[in-house]
């Protein structure tokens, strides 16, 4: 049974009181209980079941401007006392760091709206198996799907409390239902190819229909079959949505408070400067109802609100927690837990129109390795895709993409097909020039 609010609050309050009694000047605590149940199916047969029930405590203690932290999963009074004593002992040994502090009280979230982040329905392991059998039936009905690499259904429920010695005491329950399938496709005389599809929702009733999950994954795996190699050339590139989201991932890493404060971002001088074409807007909205990525406040208790990261191509905000905000002489914008539901506003072209940009182009369907380096600004990764020329296309693999992250930002054209599936969301994106494909 998921631990109720009162029980978590009691642990949190005990930790704060014990820390203060042990001469900490300030203290913050997170107590969290997560219970999850997962079932895996492979080739229509159960492969494994997994049940997890974890209660964990994270404590940060301050002695004036010194700070240290501890995490533990062994929660009885004696061990809790030992861990707190040890943490404070360590804190006292550290040098002062003037930027260490609890968040400003005026920024803490109050009267939080219900964002509908918890569904109390449950799904039994038997029902999960029935769902997964339907997924694999659909996938394996495609004659090019040779076998499944595994399909899983996970139900996860959590409850947490964050508290600090300034009186913060807040938390809520969350739920997440997710389903996944990974398929292997094979055609006579060709090698094997794999691909996957997944869905993840706060409410059980919203999860993708099993047939759709199986069919979507099958289509993705099958289109990779019989790949050709491609030659080294400069060519327009289109990133599918599941790849284009990485553009926002690399941006978020480059505009994090830490990379600005530490000077380690290739964008460190670009606040209030143009980094994208002027029709590009990027927003982070933590308050979207029923999204698994939503959060009314961050892990420090600071309220999170909708915010422009990029407006008309100009970088307007960086991602700040209390510590890095103080170093940069700003206020926290409630992003100690990072971005929540970040997205590019959709562009003006239809998906099909993007393909009219030239005689030939490559649609990137999968990448390997990291999507760029936010310190050097270099971009290089392995890729898989479809080569389009003269109204026909064929699969290609085993090639690289190289360039600068700036080339991607400056030459981006967006389709109008934005949807919210990830924490970072981007429509299908055309990069008109600047990237080099490395092949034979």
């Amino acid at each position, binding site marked *: 049974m998921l631990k109720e609010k009162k029980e978590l609050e009691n642990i949190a309050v005990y930790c704060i009181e014990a820390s203060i009694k042990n001469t900490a000047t300030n203290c913050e605590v997170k107590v969290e209980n997560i219970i999850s149940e997962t079932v895996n199916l492979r080739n229509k047969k159960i492969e*494994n079941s997994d049940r997890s029930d974890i209660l964990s405590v994270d404590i940060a203690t301050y002695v004036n401007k010194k700070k240290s932290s501890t995490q533990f999963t062994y929660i009885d009074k004696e061990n809790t006392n030992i861990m707190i004593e040890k943490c404070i002992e360590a804190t006292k040994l550290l040098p002062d760091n003037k930027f260490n502090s609890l968040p400003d009280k005026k920024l803490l979230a109050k009267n939080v709206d219900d964002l509908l982040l918890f569904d109390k329905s449950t799904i039994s392991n038997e029902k999960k198996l029935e769902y997964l059998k339907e997924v694999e039936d659909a996938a394996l009905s495609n004659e090019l799907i040779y076998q499944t690499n595994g399909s899983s259904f996970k139900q996860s429920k959590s409850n947490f409390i964050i508290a600090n010695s300034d009186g913060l005491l807040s938390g809520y329950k969350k739920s997440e239902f997710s389903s996944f399938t990974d398929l292997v496709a094979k055609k006579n005389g060709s090698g094997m190819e794999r691909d996957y599809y997944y869905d993840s929702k706060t409410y059980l009733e919203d999860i993708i229909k099993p047939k759709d999950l199986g069919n979507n994954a099958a289509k993705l795996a099958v289109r990779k079959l019989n790949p050709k190699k491609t030659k080294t050339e400069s060519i327009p590139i289109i990133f599918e949505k599941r790849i284009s989201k990485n553009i926002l991932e690399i941006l978020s890493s480059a505009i994090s408070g830490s990379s600005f404060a530490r*000077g*380690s971002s290739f964008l460190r001088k670009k606040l209030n400067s143009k980094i994208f074409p002027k029709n590009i807007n990027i927003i982070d909205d933590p308050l979207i109802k029923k999204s698994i990525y939503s959060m009314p406040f961050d892990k420090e208790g600071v309220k999170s609100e909708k915010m422009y990261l990029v407006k008309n191509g100009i970088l307007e905000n960086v991602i700040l927690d209390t510590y890095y905000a103080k170093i940069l002489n700003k206020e926290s914008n409630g992003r100690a837990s990072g971005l929540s539901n970040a997205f590019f506003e959709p562009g003006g072209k239809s998906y099909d129109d993007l393909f009219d940009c030239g005689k030939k182009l490559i649609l990137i369907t999968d990448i390997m390795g990291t999507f760029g380096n936010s310190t050097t600004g270099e971009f290089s990764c*392995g890729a898989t895709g479809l080569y389009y020329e003269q109204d026909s296309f064929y699969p290609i693999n085993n090639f690289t993409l190289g360039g600068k992250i700036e080339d991607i930002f400056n030459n981006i054209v967006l389709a109008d097909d934005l949807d919210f599936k990830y924490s970072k969301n981007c429509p299908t994106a055309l990069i008109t020039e600047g990237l080099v494909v*490395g092949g034979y």
Partner: protein
Amino acid sequence: MNDFFKKTDLTRNEVEKIIDETLLNKDDGELYLQNSINENIILDDGKIKNTNFNKTYGMGFRGVTEDVTAYCHTNSIDKNSLIDASKNINSTLKSFKSYKHNNSIRKTNEKLYSDHNPIEAKTLKEKINLLNTVDQYLRSKSNLIKQVTASISTEKKNIEIIKTGGMTLSDNQPLTSFKISLIMKKGSKNTQGSYAAGGRMTFDSYVNENNWKHVCDEAFRQAEMNLDAIKAPAGEMDVVLNNGWSGVLLHEALGHTLEGDFLYKKTSVFHDQIGNKIGNENITVVDEGNISGRRGSLNIDDEGEKTQRNVLIENGKLIKFMHDRLSAKLTKNTPTGNGRRQNYMFAPMPRMTNTFMMNGKNTREEMIKSVKKGIYVDALGGGSVDIVSGQFNFGVNNAWLIENGKLIAPVEGATLIGSGPEVIKKIEMIGNDLKLDNGFGTCGKSGQLVPVGLGIPSCKVLMTVGGSKA
């Protein structure tokens, strides 16, 4: 040894009884108990921002019949949790009417590392002072150094595995890691360098003055080299890899595809190739979990099996896969001591330990001389692989352009890609300078991270380079 049941409402006898009742009518399984502590101290931006001390405590109860695994884990070690876990396992495996219970295990008394606690080797104050000294040492090297991150992580991980009949196996797995990363800036250009040292020997074996200075010097060398780097070329070309950490090539291109779960699932590109010649005559690849003190070494794996030397590929011929107990059973092999898990929250699976290639005959100079146009890789980054298609990639931190047998200039921003079955046929020259890495490898598979070791002699191989110069 830890007594996991001292402070619980359970006695060891009761625990053994529940294990027997649950597992004697299954093929296999165990109760895995973990009590570990770790300490991380990070100096960044000239200051110790935070120190962190963690205690991980919990149990994972596993039952296996045929190819089905039921696993339950929790950090509450008490009677109710254990009984619930037992019920859960029985519920998943209830449809099996027959079973072949096997609790035999290959034991060992060999100790590849001593029972020590690296966290207590130095006081916190001493470690903080050391990091400050390291910071000063590095920053005095050049005023182009803009950022230094230095960290010391130490861990003491106690595990105990209880099987049916009260059979108990335990180990204390110490681990130390000292890491440096730095950023240099020249004009508008940022470059990075990073290096580390670590393993299961005593703290002082890795963090003595000689060693930490070597780690700093190497990280600095990498960052400085890239200040004047030019764009990397793109396309297929000869690549000369240096010895040591370049073993990540083996790990990604071959190692993962030789893990036993991909054999019984028939998803590895090599699943039907045992006994066949898959590479050149000069290639012998070994995974060896019982090398003294290495980061990837273990006295026993996370199922209690002793670790051992496994020759995977011998003179180009595929000899065997790496197995845990489940993949060994399903493929009628014996376990190879490769059943590993990140912690009590995960069931074990076949994983690498220390993976390396045996020496060849060539020198690195001969290899570079033989290249008309290509690159020499001085420091590889991390990589990944798709075991089904065999495609792999890795990042390059430092490389040199080779033209007509000579090193021309450092190049930056390259990724290397290839496919395992192809690349093993394209290793043309192998050096006589096998070296194991400095002890900083971490391997991820299905969301589980485990420490591993790597090694390779210098070698020359045809691969695709992903630079930005067409």
